[in-house]
């Protein structure tokens, strides 16, 4: 087995073989999820706690479904309304959790690095479901699985990631993963939404979307995270849509069989034209949701195996 880590905190520490191992296992869960009896027992007897310090109905539902399909006892803790508000620190939360003996802990937190900190203090396997602007590894893995199934491979592809790169953990995890698998990554967006030091990331940066989309195999759109902005990154939504929104004219510059992706939830008419999002010939956005459940099943299955191997 080439994924032997205790936690899944990010794409950064993963080797390409580990990524392939997770994706290969996820393929089997895609089949399982499409069958009549959508049930496995890989996590039977294990307790999975979903701890979301930041709202995300979609990701939380995906993890919950993944755990239940594999037989885990799943508990959701809505941390925005809990003792955190009463001043409990992350460390105290971790100690409380240890007393509940969970096996898998799925964490989303608004602070970069908070999931790493928690992982140091708890006795179970931790999955990062998104920490601040740092990483969102299962999103990158589900994107990779979607691309691999649509394109037949996950190497030597031209992938454009468009939009608010600076505030996006999805972009970071995808840049890392696609780079490790030897693809060419282009970043497209206004310079105010590019992270600093981007020139050293081994990517190509385009400020002009039409230049950037030329001949790409994959167009990955990002949500314009308005709630993250201190203000003043872009002049207006309509100018943003004009210059960086994905519409049919811009998409026509990509390869004829280029696929369109979006991590959701979408702002139709801000970063993506509604018709493109719904175009079943180009958009794989629904596939991404499906792959999300399968990839999370695979990741939790492998982490549970590693836990057992460690205990043995």
């Amino acid at each position, binding site marked *: 087995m080439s994924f032997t880590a205790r936690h899944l905190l990010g794409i950064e520490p993963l080797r390409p073989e580990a990524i392939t191992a997770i994706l290969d296992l996820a393929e089997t869960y895609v089949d399982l999820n499409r069958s009549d009896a959508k049930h496995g027992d890989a996590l039977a007897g294990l307790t999975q706690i979903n701890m979301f310090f930041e709202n995300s109905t979609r990701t939380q539902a995906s993890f919950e479904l993944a755990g239940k399909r594999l037989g885990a006892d799943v508990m959701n803790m809505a941390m925005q309304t809990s003792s955190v508000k009463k001043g409990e620190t992350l460390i105290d939360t971790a100690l409380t959790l240890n007393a509940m003996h969970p096996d898998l802990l799925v964490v989303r937190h608004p602070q970069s690095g908070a999931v790493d900190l928690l992982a140091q203090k708890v006795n179970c396997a931790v999955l990062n479901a998104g920490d*601040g602007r740092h990483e969102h590894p299962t999103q990158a893995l589900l994107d990779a699985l979607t691309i691999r199934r649509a394109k037949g491979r996950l190497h030597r592809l031209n992938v454009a990631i468009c939009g608010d790169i600076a505030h996006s953990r999805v972009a970071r995890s995808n840049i890392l993963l696609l780079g490790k698998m030897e693809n060419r990554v282009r970043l497209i967006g206004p310079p105010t939404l590019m992270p*600093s030091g981007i020139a050293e990331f081994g990517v190509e940066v385009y400020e002009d979307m039409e230049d950037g989309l030329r001949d790409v195999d994959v167009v990955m759109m990002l949500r314009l995270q308005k709630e993250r902005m201190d203000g003043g990154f872009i002049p207006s939504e309509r100018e943003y849509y004009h210059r960086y929104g994905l519409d049919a004219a811009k998409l026509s510059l990509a390869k004829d069989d280029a696929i369109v992706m979006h991590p959701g939830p979408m702002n139709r008419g801000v970063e993506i034209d509604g018709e493109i999002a719904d175009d079943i010939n180009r958009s794989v956005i629904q596939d991404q949701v499906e792959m999300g459940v399968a990839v999370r099943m695979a990741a939790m299955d492998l982490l549970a195996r590693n836990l057992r191997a460690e205990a043995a």
Partner: protein
Amino acid sequence: MSATLFTNARLIDPEALTDDTGSLLVENGRITARLGAGENASAERVIDCAGACLAPGIVDLGVKIGEPGERHKESFRTAGRAAAKGGVTTMITRPDTLPAIDNPETLEFVLRRAQADTPVTVLPMGTLTKGREGREMTEIGFLMDAGAVAFSDGDHVVENTKVLSRALTYARSLGALVIAHPQEPILSRGASATSGKFASLRGLSGVTPMAERMGLDRDIALVEMTGARYHADQITTARALPALERAKNNGFDVTAGVSIHHLTLNELDVADYRTFFKLKPPLRSEDDRQAVVEAVGSGLIDIICSMHTPQDAESKRLPFEEAASGAIGLETLLPAAMRLYHAGALGLAQLFRAMSLNPAKRLGLASGRLSAGAPADLVLFDPDKPFVMDRWSLESKSKNTPFDLQRMQGRVMATWVAGQEIYRSA
């Protein structure tokens, strides 16, 4: 009082920038003579230094002690012990306490506490503005009468340029030294790392290194306007150095410091969100670190300090962006400085020029040198002695050192203040 002769010492002289074997005669708490290798003198007491280095004690500009307000983080007693063990014979203490030291009454409390509890010399700073709020200047005159040696709002930048220009003008009329934290305040707000690849990979909000130069440029323009005596607490970026050099060449009364951490660590040391490496300003790129080391060598940056900032576990065991900034340094300043010596970047005399002589000169103190007449504030150390740093062995109440578990070289063997031995290693 009797005379003491320190023999067989490697004398680190930061004035002459020499490093020779010789002896030092101390009488009545002062250095009275320096003798070459062959010369001899008689004294009641002889201390054989056995070839170890004898240097003027460190004058540490900018030590934070938790009194008043945060004694659980550091008290004068624990800081004094840490200083003695670290070869620091004078602590210039920061006024960014709770409440801030912004009036003579609070300053008198601090001095009283310091005299009761520390074996080293304590010289306090007062704040430049009341409550460090950047709105009204403090009673600079009264504070000086009470013993304030310099005026600083710590890491708070006086954003209102009119307030700062008046405070500098007033300080100039009293000959007071103003110590500022050069930083463009709006660019650096909320930042916990230096912008660049590392900050982006970790998803941390970064501040451009240029914000330091912008802050320095504004301050230097105000110095030119007001004629004030000005010291920049920490210059940590290459981009700020030409501005500093121009100010000095123009004859302005400007000096600059840097913390030992910015000279020996870089942003990559933060690794996986290690909050003991969260500093203000944040750790910089390796290019910046090297440029700043070079600037200390050339004398462009005058002073190396520990920027001793005790933080307890509760303030540090948090997600990186929420965690408090700062690191302790009184005890690790000398061994960390030895890293620069062993790396061949700076000589021992150059290091003690920046750690002892220059801060003493800047504050008008007679210490910081080995010349006759200077107070016998001395540190004896072995620059080569290897050890593994164990933070639990440190005297400070707070244990937030970035050097925990690291291999270091250089240990203090003994420390004297005014000829009195205040520390000797076991």
